[in-house]
């Protein structure tokens, strides 16, 4: 999801101040196109305070001296509440304690993702990248108006006033933001505000503690924790094969379960609605359903992969073509040929999918770890036949997502609404079990890559031909018009089409496979497979050239200084080239995704029996200005762990058209025993900040594979890795 052009965020904006009714005086700051429709004719703020659709600001200063930062992005662990609050605190010179994040409502007219056009949502590691300038302006404008209010009150010039840690002062005079809020709201709105010189930053670049509170004492509320008066819980029986449908069902036994209230058929199965989860699940398990599998998936992973291999033999669609790769390969003495296989992967967020929906005469209200506000609003509006603004969404914390909650098909959200629609006025919590979640599809697509590459007489890459076979993620979704270009899904080729190494003859082709298996973006999307192939192939070429893998890469990255920067830093900090104990080896990989650059050096220990462990990872990251270094470190640690799961353990496979795995015993993910020591180094930078949620993930698998290659001579080309003993 990173291939949108980064547009310069307009600095033109207009700001509107307002008085307040009821709950306290607020200072609202608006950005382009935001305010006009939300203000009633007299500028009163009843709309704002009624809690319905329009809190209507990024920054709100309360008379209680809180600075509320409206967060338009989902907090799913990546630290966006902390990062976005940091930016506002910086430009306002607030105190960290007074800054409080608050989830913004679903309203694309004000809270759109500036890198997604007119759509609100979170993904592609864009939260900071699209918000940085927007929130700096919002914070600076708020500060400007507070200062103006103080200047007027004290009868002095604004430039005699300083602001620090939430205190506005001039000599012996001082006031808190809260004391000035009402007066500030009366101030004229600045046309243009000056932003801080980065040299004066006091928050940005420091590691202030996280703002997503309640996560160590059980008080944080996730979708799973919503409990509304009269709420019922639904559990759904889904078809055992993708593409299957309900032929008929017998619900007598299900309805006899104590606590079961109703059984309703929905688009993709049969739902049991009950007073609590356990009754609903017991009822669901008692359903007798006959499935119509006439249009369902019938094959196995092996049969699908065999088809992919055949497709790779045919002519694909060119995604990039430099020089004459066929001529160069046929003239080469030796051609390196490598095939790579990648399985489907489930996101398996810790919080299984769930959603609470109430449908009534006024519209529809949703409680959800909401990652794609506008898409889900539109899908719900279409389902219910209502206008988009009638869909109110309460964005809650998500217990992970890794892309799964950003589904253009809105699958689980629509499912919840289909059930809720049958009981107007009653909130319904749809809960997927872990098994439902593991088998529910929208996987990282399976892929096959074939690469043929050759060196010139000097050991430099001469030719590189790569074919990718896989399912398009965005085909058939609203994203298709701008994310599929000439038949090439940008999410399939990202990381390959822009591979950074200097290769005079380079050709990349794609083959679009089709299947009833629903697929979706999975933390770092295309780079989950393209980075592995690129970094494995370049490593093999370095070995073929008899060169050191770090030096070889450095030489081919002359036009990519930020790649070089992280690579050099990771190598230096890892002690690249220094001796290691017997059985231990290092591997390296470097990759850019979502405009952030990451290099990792992995150290592995291999046993005589083919077992191995990943012991230590040294990671260097360049994500522009490091807004909160500790959050960046945490995301690198987490991204490494997330990428290690498929490298070591996870895969979704099919047999007889059915998903084989069901829960964490067979869809295994890393546990604490698998987690290496991780050391993270951040490249100092004055570039605009870019995301860190995803870019740590794609680098670890190739770094480990390259370390295993160094230790054993075996080139691993499929995940999870299995060494021959």
């Amino acid at each position: 999801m990173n291939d949108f052009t980064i547009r310069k965020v307009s600095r033109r904006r207009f700001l509107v101040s307002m008085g307040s009714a009821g709950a306290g005086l607020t200072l609202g700051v608006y950005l382009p196109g935001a305010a006009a429709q939300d203000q009633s004719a007299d500028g009163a703020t009843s709309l704002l305070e009624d809690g319905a659709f329009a809190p209507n600001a990024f920054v709100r200063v309360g008379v209680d001296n809180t600075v509320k930062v409206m967060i338009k992005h989902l907090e799913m662990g990546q630290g966006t509440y902390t990062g976005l609050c940091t930016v506002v605190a910086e430009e306002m010179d607030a105190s960290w304690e007074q800054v409080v994040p608050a989830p913004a409502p679903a309203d694309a007219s004000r809270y759109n993702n500036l890198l997604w056009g007119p759509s609100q949502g979170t993904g592609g590691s864009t939260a900071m990248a699209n918000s940085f300038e927007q929130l700096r302006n919002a914070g600076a404008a708020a500060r400007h108006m507070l200062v103006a209010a103080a200047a007027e009150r004290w009868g002095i010039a604004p430039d005699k006033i300083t602001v620090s840690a939430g205190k506005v002062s001039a000599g012996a005079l001082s006031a808190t933001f809260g004391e000035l809020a009402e007066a500030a709201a009366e101030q004229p709105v600045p046309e243009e505000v000056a932003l801080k010189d980065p040299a004066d930053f006091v928050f940005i670049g420091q590691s202030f503690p996280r703002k997503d509170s309640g996560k160590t004492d059980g008080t944080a509320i996730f979708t799973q924790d919503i409990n509304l008066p009269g709420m019922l819980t639904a559990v759904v029986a889904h078809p055992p094969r993708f593409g299957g449908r309900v032929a008929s069902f017998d619900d007598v036994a299900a309805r006899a379960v104590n606590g079961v209230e109703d059984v309703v058929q929905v688009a993709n199965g049969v739902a049991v609605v009950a007073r609590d989860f356990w009754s609903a699940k017991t009822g669901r398990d008692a359903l007798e359903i006959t499935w119509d599998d006439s249009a369902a998936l019938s094959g196995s992973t092996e049969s699908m992969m065999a088809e992919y291999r055949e497709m790779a033999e045919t002519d694909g669609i060119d995604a990039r073509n430099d020089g004459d790769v066929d001529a160069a390969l046929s003239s080469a003495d030796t051609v390196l040929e490598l095939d790579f296989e990648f399985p489907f992967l489930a996101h398996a967020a810790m919080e299984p999918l769930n959603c609470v929906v109430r449908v009534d005469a006024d519209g529809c209200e949703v409680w959800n770890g909401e990652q794609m506000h506008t898409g889900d609003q539109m899908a719900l509006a279409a389902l219910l036949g209502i206008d988009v603004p009638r869909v109110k969404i309460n964005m809650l914390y998500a217990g992970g997502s890794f892309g799964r909650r950003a589904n253009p098909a809105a699958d689980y959200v629509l499912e919840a609404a289909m059930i809720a629609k049958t009981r107007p006025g009653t909130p319904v919590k749809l809960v997927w079990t872990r098994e439902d979640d593991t088998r529910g599809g929208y996987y990282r697509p399976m892929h096959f890559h074939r690469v043929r590459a050759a060196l010139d007489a000097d050991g430099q890459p001469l030719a590189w031909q790569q074919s990718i076979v896989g399912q398009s993620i965005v085909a058939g979704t609203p994203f298709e018009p701008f994310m599929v270009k000439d038949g090439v899904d940008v999410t399939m080729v990202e990381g390959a089409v822009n591979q950074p190494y200097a290769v005079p003859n380079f050709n990349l082709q794609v083959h679009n496979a089709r299947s009833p298996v629903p697929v979706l973006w999975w933390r770092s999307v295309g780079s989950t497979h393209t980075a592995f192939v690129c970094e494995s192939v370049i490593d093999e070429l370095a070995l073929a050239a008899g060169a050191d893998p770090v030096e070889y890469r450095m030489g081919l990255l002359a036009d990519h200084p930020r790649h070089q920067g992280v690579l050099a830093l990771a190598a230096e900090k890892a002690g690249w080239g220094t001796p290691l104990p017997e059985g231990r080896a290092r591997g390296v990989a470097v990759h850019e995704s979502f405009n952030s650059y990451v290099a990792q050096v992995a150290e592995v220990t291999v046993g005589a029996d083919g077992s191995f462990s990943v012991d230590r990872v040294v990671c260097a990251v360049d994500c522009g200005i490091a807004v909160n270094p500790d959050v960046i470190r945490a995301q690198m640690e987490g991204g490494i762990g997330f990428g290690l799961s498929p490298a070591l353990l996870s895969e979704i496979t099919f047999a007889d058209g059915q998903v084989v795995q069901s829960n964490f015993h067979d869809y295994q993910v890393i546990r604490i025993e698998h987690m290496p020591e991780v050391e993270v180094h951040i490249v100092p930078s004055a570039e605009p900040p870019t995301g860190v949620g995803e870019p740590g993930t794609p680098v670890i698998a190739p770094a480990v594979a390259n370390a295993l290659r160094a230790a054993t001579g075996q080139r691993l080309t499929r995940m999870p890795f299995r060494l021959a003993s």
Partner: protein
Amino acid sequence: MAVTLTINGNEHTLDVADDMPLLWAIRDHAGLTGTKFGCGLALCGACTVHLDGNPIRSCSTPVSAVAGGNITTIEGLNSKAAAAVQAAWQKLDVVQCGYCQSGQIMSATALLAGNSDPDDADIDAAMNGNICRCSTYVRIRAAIKEAARSLA
């Protein structure tokens, strides 16, 4: 069918079936939502609570098996070890999405209650049943050591 449970020192008489897992009695009937559902099969640790001080997986423990015992959930933690664990978790900013963390903290607290100076192997053994999909493991390890130091 009524079952009486002692949760965080309070008696709850709940109208639930004997075979309902403790997790759902705690969450859906006692209204305490800090204890999480992750897998339902004793595979992930998100649902960890203490029964008479020992960590158990509430998703796989029927209510009938714990009537008469003292159940402690994340909301009811009040030992010195627990306070040290929670303080260390905050000091090192362990959490990411946070969904697994009630279970992690329940397991870590039980570990420290029985072992005041755990090494890496002890930590791995005690915490291996608690999955964190955000992979906060590096910090979990460090925070347990930090908590142990603060208790020493």
